[in-house]
Every structure is written in structure tokens, then in C-alpha cells.
């Protein structure tokens, strides 16, 4: 069957990693995450609204840290300093859990990763003992540098965050896969099941997605579709596809025909 995915000190059964943003409510979040079969579930860290009812349900009530591997992100951080502070708060919030998703995003409409700040934050976080899964551009040189710094997984975008455009530069992703030893996980850009399969057939170790599931008409059904897509893509990669040929090659024997 499908091989497990090793990310730093974590052994994961599922190669689908999912986000918890953009769902209509916490009940739908919980149901979709369960249908996805994911082990790793991302979450954001935000200021507590002090005017709010402190007894209202919390994300961690639905996505239990004992059931899932939580992956706090640094979404919304535009500087290395803010990203590092957010990770320290997340580690405290999750009782010393040190796996984080580092993302430092530019203030542009592309939401492209700011790789200069990302590299600086990665160095600090690795030195502080965090296991860093890092969101980055599909630039192979930056990916190599992030691995050299000590990140446990490098996560290039397939397309801009929330765009659903699918893998826009499979050649760069392929090049990153050839160059790195740590897991390469496509993060962002997947729109539908076939996009996820394409990433897995290329040899990616996993795919992280949020919007493709949360903004589907039926998020729970799409979560299931993505689970199957990731498994199919991985199995096909491990099985090894047939070579492409320019002309037909008959499937039935061409001898022993009746006359």
C-alpha cells in the first residue's frame, strides 16, 4: 500500500495536509477534515477578541490535538520577526508542540512568499528547535537554501494562494524534487482533484490545501475526492507510469487470429 510520509520526527499516514480556513462553521470544518483523512491540519494564531463570549466553541474543540497533528501557520505575517513571534506563541498554545508552517507573505495581490524574510525566519526558528515546514515560491535555488538551513519540509506553491489554478510550473516542481532530500509538499494552488493527482504523480511527497475543499459546493464530498486523488497520484507515482509513445501499440496479441 501507500508508504508513509516522514516529516522531521513525525510519521504521517496521509499525504494530504489540510487547512481549516474559509469553512461556513466549525461543524463543517470538522466533518470535512474527517472526510479528508488528513493527519496534519493547519491552523492560524490570532488575537483573542476580548469582547467575545469566552465559552464559544474553539477550533481546538473540533480539531483535537490528540487526534490530529496540528500545524500552526504564520499566515498574515509580513516580516520574519512577526513570524517568529507567532511560532513561539503557537508552541506555547499547543503545549510545546514544535512543528510549524512558516509563511511570510508579501503585501501584494499575488500573496507571493517573501523569500528574503522567509529565509531569515527559517534560520531563527530552526536555531530555536522548531521543526519548520516552509511555504515558498517554486524557485529551486531558494528551495535548496531552505533545506540547507534545516527545514523539515519545503512547500512550494503550485499557483497563488486560493487561486485554484493547479500546478502552473511543473518543471520547477520537478527540479525542486530532483534537488532536495527533505519532503517536497505542494502548498497552495490546487483547484480540484486532478490538480492534486498531477502533483503526486510528479513525485511530490504530499499536497497541502485549504480553499479547494472549503470553497467547493460540497466541501465534505470534495475532501473525500481529494483523499482519493492524493492516494491515486501517489500509487501511480510509486507504480511508475508507462512510457509515452507517438503511435498506437495494440493491447491484444496480433498472432493466433482466426482465418
Amino acid at each position, binding site marked *: 500500500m501507500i508508504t508513509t510520509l516522514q516529516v522531521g520526527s513525525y510519521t504521517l499516514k496521509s499525504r494530504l495536509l489540510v487547512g*481549516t480556513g474559509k469553512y461556513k462553521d466549525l461543524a463543517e470544518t470538522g466533518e470535512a477534515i474527517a472526510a479528508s483523512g488528513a493527519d496534519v491540519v493547519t491552523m492560524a494564531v490570532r*488575537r483573542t477578541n476580548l469582547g467575545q463570549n469566552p465559552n464559544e466553541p*474553539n477550533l481546538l474543540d473540533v480539531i483535537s490535538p490528540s487526534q490530529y497533528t496540528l500545524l500552526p*501557520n504564520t499566515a498574515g505575517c509580513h516580516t520574519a520577526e512577526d513570524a517568529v*513571534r507567532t511560532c513561539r*506563541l503557537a508552541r*506555547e498554545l499547543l503545549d510545546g508542540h514544535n512543528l510549524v508552517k512558516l509563511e511570510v507573505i508579501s503585501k501584494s495581490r499575488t500573496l507571493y512568499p517573501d523569500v528574503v524574510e522567509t529565509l531569515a525566519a527559517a534560520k531563527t526558528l530552526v536555531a530555536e528547535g522548531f521543526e519548520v515546514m516552509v511555504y515558498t515560491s517554486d524557485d529551486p535555488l531558494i528551495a535548496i537554501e531552505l533545506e540547507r538551513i534545516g527545514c523539515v519540509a519545503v512547500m512550494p506553491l503550485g499557483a497563488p494562494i486560493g487561486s485554484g489554478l493547479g500546478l502552473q510550473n511543473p518543471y520547477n516542481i520537478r527540479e525542486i524534487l530532483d534537488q532536495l532530500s527533505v519532503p517536497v509538499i505542494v502548498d497552495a494552488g490546487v483547484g480540484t482533484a486532478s490538480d492534486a493527482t498531477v502533483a503526486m504523480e510528479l513525485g511530490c511527497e504530499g499536497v497541502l490545501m485549504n480553499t479547494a475543499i472549503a470553497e467547493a459546493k460540497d466541501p465534505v464530498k470534495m475532501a473525500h475526492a481529494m483523499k482519493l486523488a492524493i492516494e491515486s497520484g501517489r500509487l501511480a507515482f510509486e507504480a511508475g507510469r508507462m512510457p509515452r509513445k507517438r503511435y498506437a501499440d495494440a493491447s491484444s496479441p496480433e498472432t493466433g487470429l482466426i482465418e
Partner: protein
Amino acid sequence: MKLKVNGNEEVVDVSTLADYLALCGLLGKRIAVEHNGEIVPKSAFGATQLEDGDALEIVHAIGGG
């Protein structure tokens, strides 16, 4: 005393961080706190004295990708 909590000024009458969190109904909730830029472990809430002008960041987990 005056505190700056999550960017907003508040005037409160408390002595420790645990007092302040209890006042907000947040003691025992899944939160993390930064006091003047430094993380405060949950075990140290009671021992952390607040002073006039201190800054707190109080965060929790929400949905995100």
C-alpha cells in the same frame, strides 16, 4: 493601571497576569500570552506581576490554511 492588550488600551485593577485573565474569563482557556514581547508559560501566569504600561498579546487558534 493602564495595560495595552492586543493593541487596545485598558484600565484595570489587577496585580498578576492570572488576575487579568480571570477578569476576562480566559483563565484555563486554550490561549497563549506574550508579556512585553516575551512568552509567558501557562505555569507562570500567577507569578507574573503586571505593571502600569505593560503590553500583552493574548492569542488563540482559529481556522487557517
